[in-house]
C-alpha cells in the first residue's frame, strides 16, 4: 500500500465534499505570513511525514501569532521525525474541539469479510486498536456489501444507538463520501482520525490517512506516485530504478528493496547483497541469515517465472550497490517454474561483475524445476571466471545454516586477501554495444523491454556449433531465430513480430558462448542505473 501524505489525503477529501480545515502546505518559512493571513492567527502546524505517531515525536504543534508560527515552522522544516527529514508542513486553522471521533473505510482480509469495512468510534484521536480492545462498545464495525454499497438507513440506526442522534446525518454523509473516495482511488484505507465535532457543531476531518493499493497505482497517474512500495521512508535511487524493471512487465516479479536505505552506510562495508526466489524462499532464507548475524543490504526477489532479463536487471542493481562484499542467492524452496532463466541471468551478470571485482564471493542455492539443467548452465558458465562461487541444490534447500557457514568462509577469504576492484563501476553498469564496423556484420533487433540482440555473422562459427543459438531459442524461447542458407537468421523481418517472438531468455547468447562462439551479444539496459552510480561515484573504491 502506498501511503499518501496528510495534505494529499485532504485534497482528495475536499474534492469529494468532506469538510477539512482551512490550510496551506508550505515548504519555506517565508510562506508563513501569507498562509496566516488567509487562515487566521491561531494555527496547527503539522509536519508532512508518512510515519505515524507524529504528535509524540513533536511533529504537530500550535501557534497563535505569525512570529510564533515562523519559529515553529523554522524548527520543523529540515529536522528529522522518526528518521525522515521534514520537507513540507501543513499550516491549518486550529479547530475548536467539542469531541473527537473516528471514521475509516478499510479493506479486510478476514474470510468473513473479504471486502471493505466501515469502522466508527465515538472515541477518536487515539489508537483505534486500543479502543477496540478496551471499549468494544464504543465501536461500530460495519462490513460493506461490495455489490450494494453502504446502506445509509442501516448505519444511521447503528450511529443513533451509539448516542449520536444529533450528528447522524452529517456522519452518514461523510461515510458515504469516504467510501466513494476509496473506490474512486482504489484505496486500501481511508481513515479520518480524529474526525472533529467543533463547538459550533461542524464535523471536520482534522487528520487523514489514505493508502492506495500498490497494484492500482497505474490507474492514478494524477497522484504522481513514482513507485508503489510500502515504506515509511523516501525511496532510494536504486529502489526507484528497480521499479522501472517491473512497472509495465507482468512476466514474473522483480521486487527490490534496500534493507539498509542509507547507501553511505552500505559503502562502509560488511554488507552482502541478498537475493531470493519467491516470497517464501526469501522469508525462510533471510531469517536464517539474519539470525546468524549477516548484514543484508538488499532484499531482491525474482520469481513467478520472470524473464531472464528481469532477473539480470535486478541482479545488476543489487551488485551495483557500493561496497557490497558478497552475493547470496538463496532459492530456499523447491521452485515450481523452470529455473534456467535464472541460470542464464546469473552467468551473464557475473561474467561482467567478476571482471570488475575479481575474487568476489557468491553463494548460489537454486532448486526445483529443471534444477539439473540449470546447475549445468551455472557451473559451465561460471567456470574459469575470477569469482569465488559455490552452488547448491535441493539437497541443501532447507539447510541455509550450512550454506551460511560456507558463505562466511568465502567472505572471510575475500576480506583477508583485501577486496580489489579493477576498472570502473560505470563500465560494469553501462551497456556495451557493438562498434560501427561490427554492426555492419550484425543481424539485430530490439526486444519488448528495450533490449538489443546482436548476432555478429563475422564471428559466427555455425554450423560447427550445431546452431546452438537457434536450437536454444526454439527450446527455451518461442523461436525468434531460424536457420537460413546454413546461417542463423532472424525469424521475421517485421520488428513487431520479433519483439513478440523473443521472450528475453538469454539462452541464445549463453549457448553460442558455451559452444565456443562469441557471436551473440545481448544488450540489456538497466534504465537509470548509470546515472545513479555516477551520483554516488565517490562511494566506489
Amino acid at each position, binding site marked *: 500500500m502506498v501511503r499518501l501524505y496528510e495534505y494529499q489525503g485532504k485534497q482528495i477529501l475536499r474534492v469529494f465534499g468532506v469538510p477539512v480545515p482551512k490550510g496551506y502546505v508550505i515548504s519555506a518559512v517565508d510562506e508563513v505570513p501569507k498562509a496566516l493571513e488567509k487562515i487566521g492567527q491561531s494555527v496547527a502546524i503539522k509536519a508532512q511525514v508518512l510515519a505515524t505517531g507524529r504528535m509524540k515525536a513533536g511533529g504537530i504543534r500550535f501557534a497563535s501569532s505569525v512570529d510564533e508560527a515562523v519559529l515553529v515552522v523554522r524548527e520543523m522544516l529540515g529536522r528529522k521525525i522518526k528518521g525522515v527529514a521534514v520537507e513540507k508542513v501543513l499550516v491549518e486553522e486550529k479547530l475548536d474541539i467539542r469531541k473527537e471521533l473516528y471514521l475509516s473505510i478499510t479493506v479486510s482480509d478476514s474470510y468473513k469479510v473479504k471486502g471493505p469495512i466501515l469502522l466508527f468510534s465515538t472515541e477518536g484521536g487515539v489508537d483505534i486498536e486500543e479502543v477496540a480492545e478496551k471499549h468494544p462498545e464504543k465501536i461500530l464495525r460495519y462490513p460493506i456489501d461490495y455489490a450494494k454499497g453502504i446502506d445509509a438507513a442501516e448505519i444511521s440506526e447503528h450511529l443513533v444507538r451509539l448516542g449520536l442522534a444529533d450528528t447522524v446525518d452529517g456522519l452518514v454523509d461523510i461515510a458515504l463520501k469516504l467510501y466513494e473516495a476509496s473506490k474512486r482511488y482504489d484505496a486500501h484505507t481511508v481513515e479520518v482520525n480524529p474526525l472533529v465535532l467543533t463547538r459550533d457543531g461542524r464535523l471536520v476531518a482534522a487528520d487523514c490517512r489514505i493508502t492506495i*493499493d500498490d*497494484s492500482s497505482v497505474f490507474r492514478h497517474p494524477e497522484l504522481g506516485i513514482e513507485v508503489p512500495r510500502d515504506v515509511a521512508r523516501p525511496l532510494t535511487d536504486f529502489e526507484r530504478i528497480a521499479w522501472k524493471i517491473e512497472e509495465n512487465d507482468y512476466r514474473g*516479479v522483480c521486487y527490490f528493496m534496500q534493507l539498509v536505505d542509507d547507501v553511505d552506510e552500505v559503502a562502509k562495508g560488511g554488507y552482502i547483497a541478498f537475493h531470493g526466489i519467491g516470497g517464501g524462499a526469501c522469508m525462510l532464507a533471510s531469517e536464517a541469515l539474519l539470525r546468524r548475524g549477516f548484514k543484508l543490504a538488499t532484499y531482491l526477489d525474482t520469481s513467478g517465472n520472470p524473464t531472464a532479463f528481469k532477473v539480470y536487471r535486478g541482479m545488476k542493481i543489487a551488485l551495483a550497490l557500493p561496497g557490497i562484499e558478497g552475493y547470496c542467492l538463496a532459492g530456499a524452496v523447491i521452485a*515450481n517454474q523452470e529455473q534456467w532463466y535464472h541460470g542464464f541471468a546469473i552467468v551473464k551478470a557475473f561474467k561482467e561483475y567478476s571482471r570488475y571485482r575479481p575474487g568476489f564471493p557468491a553463494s548460489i542455492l537454486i532448486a526445483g524445476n529443471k534444477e539439473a539443467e540449470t546447475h549445468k548452465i551455472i557451473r559451465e558458465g561460471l567456470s574459469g571466471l575470477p569469482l569465488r562461487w559455490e552452488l547448491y541444490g535441493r539437497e541443501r534447500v*532447507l539447510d541455509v545454516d550450512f550454506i551460511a557457514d560456507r558463505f562466511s568462509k568465502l567472505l572471510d577469504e575475500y576480506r583477508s586477501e583485501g577486496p580489489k576492484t579493477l576498472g570502473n563501476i560505470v563500465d560494469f553498469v553501462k551497456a556495451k554495444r557493438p562498434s560501427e564496423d561490427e554492426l555492419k556484420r550484425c543481424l539485430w533487433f530490439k526486444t519488448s523491454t528495450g533490449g538489443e540482440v546482436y548476432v555478429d555473422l563475422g564471428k559466427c562459427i555455425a554450423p560447427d556449433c550445431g546452431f546452438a543459438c537457434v536450437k536454444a531459442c526454439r527450446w527455451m524461447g518461442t523461436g525468434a531465430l531460424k536457420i537460413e542458407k546454413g546461417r542463423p537468421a532472424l525469424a521475421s523481418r517485421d520488428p513487431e513480430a520479433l519483439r513478440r517472438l523473443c521472450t528475453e531468455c538469454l539462452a541464445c547468447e549463453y549457448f553460442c558462448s558455451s559452444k565456443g562462439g562469441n557471436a551473440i551479444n545481448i544488450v540489456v539496459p538497466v534504465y537509470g542505473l548509470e546515472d545513479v552510480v555516477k551520483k554516488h561515484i565517490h562511494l566506489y573504491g
Partner: protein
Amino acid sequence: MTSMAILIDEKTRVLVQGITGRTGAFGTRAMLEYGTKVVAGVTPGRRGESVWGVPVFNSVEEAVKEVGPIDLSVAFVPAPQVKEAVIEALRAGIKTVVVPAERVPLHDILAMVSYAKSVGARIIGPGSLGLISPGKASAGWIGGARELIEESFRPGNVGVISRSGGGVTTVCWILSQSGLGISTAVHVGTEPVIGTTGAELLKDFQADEETHAVVVFGEIGGLMELEMAEVIKSGDFRKPIVFYIAGRMLPSGMRFSHASAIIERRADTAEYKEKVLEEVGAYVAKKPTELATITKEILKR
C-alpha cells in the same frame, strides 16, 4: 457420500483461460502431462486453434456450449484484465476459478470475490500457483515438470495449505521425502485479499476422509493463521494440524514480496501467531523440516 481429496480430482473437467499465452500454454502442458482433464481453452479471437491438443474457443460460454459442463477454470490472464475473465467464467456457471495473476488491483479482487460469493462459487487466489491432488489432477502451474511433481507430491493423507508458491512445493517435498503423502495441496495466493483462505479450506479438509492431518506454510502479516486458530478452537476443524510461520526477524511496516506479508498490527508477527496457534492445540514447527517429523509423529499415534 465419501469425499476424496478437495477441490479437484481425476474427474474434474478443467478449462484454461488465456491458453494461447506464454504462461497459459506452459500451464496447460504441465496439467495435461499430469493427467488433468483439460477439456477446453479460451482466448478471444482464437477459436479453431488448439494448444497441446486442447481446442480453443472465443469465450467461456462458447466453450461450455461445445464441450459440455466445466467444473474448474484456471485464468492465466494478466492482472489488469483478469477481473473480466474471472467474472466471465463465473457467469458461465463454473464453480471454481484459480487465479495465478499477481498485482491484481485490489478493488478488482473485491468485485470478483463478491460476485463469486453471490453465485456460490469459489476463487482460489489471486496470486495462486494452483492446487494439486497427487495422483489425480492439478490446476495451475504447481510443481512444474513431471519429474519434479512425482518427487514432490506423493499421494497420501496430509492436506497442505500454503501462502507461498515455492512453500507449497517445498512443504510437499519435505513430506514426500520423509515417506508421507498428500491428499490435496493448495496455494491460497499472495494478494492482500484472496478468494479462499486457510480458514475455509480447513472445513473442506475436515470433511475429506482422505485427509488425516493438515500442514500449513504460514507467513507474517494478515489474519489467515489467526482465523484458522478460531476455526480450530470452535471445533469445526478437529484433525491434527502443524504450522510453520515464515518471516520472523523481518522488520515491520514493510512489505516483503507478497502483498499479504506486511506486518501492520501487533497481532500479525510470527511470534504472536505461533502463540495463538499453540493455545488452541495446533503444533508449531520452528523449522520447515520439523513439519515432516512432527506430522509423522502425530500420525503414528
